[in-house]
């Protein structure tokens, strides 16, 4: 019965959403207070119903109810509990249910914390939000129903794809979805503002925390996914420019651009129509991302659900919402006149440059991602676009971004001079040059990449520190802690970008890789480390068979680590996986992968020394942390009108 309750709650939520997208909108148009206000209870009701629905599916997974066909397809009685739970969204239907649950979550957060919004704007925001929900409810109910029963329940399930049975991947999709769906708030605010025909500083102050929250979630989600790929796929890569990765990266880039352009709207009442357009596009790319992943239209490592019919449905959603929003934009954008006056060389100008770089970078990722599709459709060329293209076409924009970022972020509003903006950065420049010299001296002559990347990264980090120092004025270090949190957030996030820059450059330039047949008890040398394979034994888990090697690592006679790389076979899915063993370190990771037993003795063993590996995700976490600090700034708490908490921290606590 529980599955039926879930199914029923889903259909009720659909009905409530239909109400919420019509009645409050009419109310806002006619100025009927009661009709407008009914959006709030409706949004909360949606959340309640979706929680019931999602809860029901979770119960079906946890209790291994194989009469529900989705559970049969994706679960197994011997699977550990955490993967029974994460299995709920480790498949197409369940992940879409999670998507609408989060949509309802954001909608009700806006209803709860939108107390100080003008009533008509609030009604319209919730109305647009509900319209998005309606489309996705219909998508789930008509093409991807997770609650179908089977006539003859089988005895056991077919198990979850073993690659997905992993803690990193268990939480990767929820964070990504929080990000994607969070951008729907920016979209709803943008469309509501277009209907109202009014965009001002207050609007930007309302929309920015939601965008910031979405961007934080996207950052964490992308970092988790990249970290998962690093330790799970078995060769230590962290970014593949795979269509599915790109699908999450494009909204991230546009959300980052939107965050910055909204500052200009808030402080200077300029860039309004561009900001609206960005908000529409950022959510549009979230939908495109969903389309790419869910339709499997572009082959990728990730698409475990290929179904053209669903793809067409999402494409239709995309066309209606983005097409509709852009049409509205075409009619109304001219009404949004800019007020601020400023010179090209100014904070405003720097933020425009930021937006140009981020938006064009997102465009490059977009065209590279869809190019195989375009080439096949128009010229019949079956081709691939992979890392070599993106590395060459995307990187230049990031290099320019890194060069100008510390300078631009120091510029005053309205009018700046280059000399004055550069002066506080003298120390940062000297330190970055010192880092470049150091890296040049350490690396053995071959890598310009290491020198440039490390230099740019440290320029960002030191530049962020310099700016914080400058903000204290003559008051010195004592004032550092009393700076507004927005200043701290900005510095931490920009420094995080720098850390990631350094890491990506150095891991590529300095990585040591070794592939060999290792004989038991015969030591070998890799870089500064002595490795020795001690033994290989059986080590079966609850739902897999495994062989586990014991590899001891020493350096100059001192123990460094004992590593246990595994080779697993998941019999239910008949799929072999490698479990790399990693010794995480601050300066480097040691990464060991076990291969096959060789016919004439010994085992294939692959070893990497990966310098600065953790810095990649450390940098990403710093970016997210910076966003979080900024989110707790007093300005937003005041703007939210609620003393209790900023709207988005409440969302984060879910």
């Amino acid at each position, binding site marked *: 019965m529980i599955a039926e309750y879930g199914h029923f709650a889903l259909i009720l939520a659909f009905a409530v959403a239909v109400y919420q997208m019509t009645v409050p909108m009419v109310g806002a148009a006619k100025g009927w207070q009661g009709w407008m206000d009914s959006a709030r209870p409706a949004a909360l009701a949606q959340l309640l119903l979706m929680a019931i629905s999602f809860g029901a599916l979770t119960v079906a997974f946890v209790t291994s109810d194989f009469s529900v066909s989705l559970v049969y397809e994706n679960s197994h009685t011997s699977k550990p509990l955490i993967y029974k739970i994460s299995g709920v969204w480790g498949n197409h239907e369940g992940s879409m249910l999670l998507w609408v649950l989060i949509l309802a979550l954001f909608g009700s957060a806006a209803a709860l914390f939108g107390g100080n919004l003008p009533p008509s704007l609030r009604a319209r925001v919730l109305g647009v939000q509900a319209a998005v929900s309606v489309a996705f409810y219909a998508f789930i109910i008509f093409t991807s129903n997770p609650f179908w029963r089977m006539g003859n329940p089988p005895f056991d399930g077919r198990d979850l794809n073993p690659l997905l049975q992993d803690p990193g991947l268990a939480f990767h999709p929820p964070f990504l979805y929080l990000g994607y769906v969070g951008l729907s708030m920016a979209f709803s605010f943008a469309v509501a503002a277009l209907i109202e025909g009014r965009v001002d500083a207050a609007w930007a102050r309302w929309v920015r925390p939601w965008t910031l929250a979405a961007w934080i979630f996207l950052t964490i989600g992308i970092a988790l996914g990249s970290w998962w790929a690093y330790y799970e796929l078995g060769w230590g890569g962290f970014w593949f420019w795979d269509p599915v990765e790109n699908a999450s990266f494009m909204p991230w880039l546009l959300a980052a651009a939107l965050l910055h352009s909204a500052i200009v709207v808030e402080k200077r009442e300029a860039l309004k129509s561009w900001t609206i357009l960005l908000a529409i596009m950022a959510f549009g790319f979230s939908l495109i991302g969903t389309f790419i992943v869910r339709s499997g239209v572009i*082959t990728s*490592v990730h698409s475990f659900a290929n179904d053209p019919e669903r793809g067409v449905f999402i494409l239709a959603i995309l066309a209606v919402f983005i097409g509709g929003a852009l049409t509205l934009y075409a009619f109304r954008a001219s009404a949004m006149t800019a*007020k601020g*006056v*400023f010179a090209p060389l100014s904070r405003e100008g720097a933020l425009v440059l930021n937006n140009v770089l981020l938006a064009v970078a997102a*465009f490059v990722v977009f065209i590279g991602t869809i190019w195989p599709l375009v080439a096949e459709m128009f010229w019949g060329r079956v081709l691939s*676009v992979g890392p070599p*293209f993106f590395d060459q076409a995307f990187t230049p924009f990031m290099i320019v971004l890194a060069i100008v970022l510390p300078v631009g972020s120091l510029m005053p509003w309205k009018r700046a001079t280059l000399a004055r903006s550069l002066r506080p950065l003298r120390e940062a420049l000297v330190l970055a040059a010192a880092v470049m010299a150091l890296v040049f001296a350490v690396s053995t002559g071959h890598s310009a990449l290491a020198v440039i990347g490390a230099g740019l990264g440290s320029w960002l980090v030191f530049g962020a520190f310099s700016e914080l120092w400058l903000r204290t004025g003559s008051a010195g270090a004592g004032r550092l802690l009393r700076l507004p949190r927005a200043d701290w957030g900005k510095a931490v996030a920009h420094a995080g970008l720098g850390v990631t820059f350094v890491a990506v450059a150095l891991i590529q330039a300095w990585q040591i890789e070794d592939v060999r047949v290792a004989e038991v008890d015969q030591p070998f040398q890799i870089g500064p480390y002595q490795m020795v394979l001690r033994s290989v034994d059986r080590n079966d888990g609850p739902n897999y068979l495994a062989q586990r090697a014991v590899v001891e690592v020493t350096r100059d006679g001192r123990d460094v680590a004992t590593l246990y790389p595994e080779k697993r076979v998941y019999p239910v899915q008949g799929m072999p996986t490698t479990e790399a063993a990693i010794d995480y370190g601050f300066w480097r990771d040691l990464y060991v992968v076990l291969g*096959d037993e060789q016919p004439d003795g010994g085992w294939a063993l692959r070893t990497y020394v990966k310098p600065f590996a953790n810095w990649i995700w450390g940098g990403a976490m710093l970016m997210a942390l910076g966003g979080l600090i900024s989110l707790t700034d007093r300005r937003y708490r005041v703007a939210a009108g609620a003393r209790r908490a900023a709207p988005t921290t409440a969302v984060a606590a879910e």
Partner: protein
Amino acid sequence: MTRLLRGLLLVLALAGPLSVPAFAVQPDEVLEDAGLEARAREISRKLRCPVCQGETIDDSNAAISRDLRLYVRERLVAGDTDPEVIDNVVDRFGEFVLFEPRATGSGLILWLAGPLMALIAALVAWRFLRSRDRAPTETPALDAAEKKRLDEIMRGG
């Protein structure tokens, strides 16, 4: 689907019986000559495994990727240049295996799209910035009633 089928046929034709999937580059593949091996790795990272989803032959466990890796090394040992090796593989498997699409014909659009868009965006941004610089100051002119009131204030009334 046809792509997958074609891929499978290729595997059967080239690799004979499917070997058990193992891990990427195997120890027995590695060339003695470190310089050649480095070139082989570089080339392998640009070639896509024909039957996998978006993996390079360097990373892939598929049997056909192993055959391709061995083929690349064979050609390098025989003295081919890097572009010759890549051309050879592309001739057999088509452009699909090339992760770095060629900048010829319609491929030119892909490579030029980014720089062109950057140029357009820069122009638009520059025009916008100039227009903001020349925009009239924010204070609108006073109307007659306001002028009269101002005069009164100035006169001390």
